[in-house]
């Protein structure tokens, strides 16, 4: 599936406060697109707009697969999102969380596959533990499993290595490397090491006066 994300003249403001404006960029298949900038620059907001969770003040985001532009609902189905604003269910176990979201996404649920996925993100042996008993690092690993579960062509990662240990950071590196081969990664981060994964980098914030000019993201 050849996936493409096109952002045209995107702007977002909360009342009088303008977060960013006039962002235009096309993200092609096989690209890691990094969004950098200080706290409050609008990185998370931009990612939420791309996911269709937040309406922009101006401009538009379109996602196409094999040349066909997707509707808002179809777009969400093609995205795997990891974000500090997104939580899973504390009252369910790791496996039950994955089962629930598999059924919501209309996927056939296989406990073996789910266990393999949990093992991949480093949760082997914790499959049946309630999420309430997980540390923040383990929760982040489960969020990665949630985002990867439906093999999305677009992976949107907001601070993907937050709360992760060294092994977790290597897991994120591996996920990004694998996703680059089969789709698109859009990532927001403050970490210079993570920004370096980006094939193209968009810097938001006062220094960039909102964003880089149209098409000039590296």
């Amino acid at each position, binding site marked *: 599936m050849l996936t493409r994300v096109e952002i045209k003249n995107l702007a977002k403001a909360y009342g009088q406060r303008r977060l960013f404006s006039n962002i235009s960029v096309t993200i092609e298949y096989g690209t890691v697109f990094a969004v950098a900038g200080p706290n409050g620059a609008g990185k998370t907001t931009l990612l939420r707009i791309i996911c269709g969770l937040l309406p922009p003040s101006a401009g538009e985001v379109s996602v196409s697969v094999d040349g066909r532009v997707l509707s808002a609902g179809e777009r969400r189905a093609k995205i795997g999102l990891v974000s500090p604003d997104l939580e899973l269910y504390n*009252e369910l176990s790791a496996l039950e969380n994955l089962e629930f979201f598999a059924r*919501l*996404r209309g996927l056939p649920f296989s406990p073996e596959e789910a266990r393999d996925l949990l093992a991949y993100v480093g949760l082997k042996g914790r499959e049946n533990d309630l999420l309430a008993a997980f540390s923040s690092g383990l929760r982040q690993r489960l969020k990665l499993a949630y985002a990867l579960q439906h093999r999305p062509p677009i992976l949107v990662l907001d601070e993907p290595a937050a709360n992760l240990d060294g092994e977790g950071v290597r897991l994120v590196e591996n996920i990004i490397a694998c996703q680059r081969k089969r789709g698109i990664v859009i990532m927001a981060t403050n970490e210079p090491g993570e920004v370096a994964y980006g094939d193209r980098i968009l810097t938001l914030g006062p220094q960039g006066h909102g964003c880089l000019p149209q098409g000039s993201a590296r």
Partner: protein
Amino acid sequence: MAVCRKDLRVEFRTRYAYSALLMFAVTVMVTVSFTVGGFLPDSGVAAALLWIILFFSAMAGLPRIFAQEEEKGTAAALRMAAAPETVLMGKYMYNAVLLFSLAVLLVPLFFVLLNQSVLLPGLFLAVLLLGLLGLAAVSTVLAAIVAKAEAKGLLMAVLSFPVLLPLLLTAVKATHNCLAGSREGVAASMLLLFCYDGVILAASFLLFAYIWDD
């Protein structure tokens, strides 16, 4: 079904909503039974009391259904994984199951404590079923509307009262007739309740995507 099953599983482990519903209902019921203990309320008063208790019990527990998704941050995960209609249907089914299970405990208790009897039990159950389906439908969609508001409880009661008034008046009247053994007007009331439920559900499905996404 997945959303409903998940909510039931979470509720089974936490018992927040059901406890709130049940405690409120039992407290009000016992208070009412002590108050009217000395005399036997007629079927009209009893029918009104039953639906008042069901209405306020629903208001005590059901608005949490979307608020907890927003407060715990799980709403984003739901939005990314499911179509709005799937979420609405699941939440509606969950609210309906919760209300039915409350009614299973509450209604027999009501008849015992208020010393009432039903002369048309079949029709009474049908009226109760249609009334609770409507109550669950209105509670579900209004819970989604108030989920991000500050004063959820107050807003829920203020918004739901005018919307639920036709349902409550019709259900009280039909329940009164069922308790008194009069078939007059019950069929028309049931048809009205059926249409009300249909209209509320149809409107909910049409509007929910806007409510949920904004």
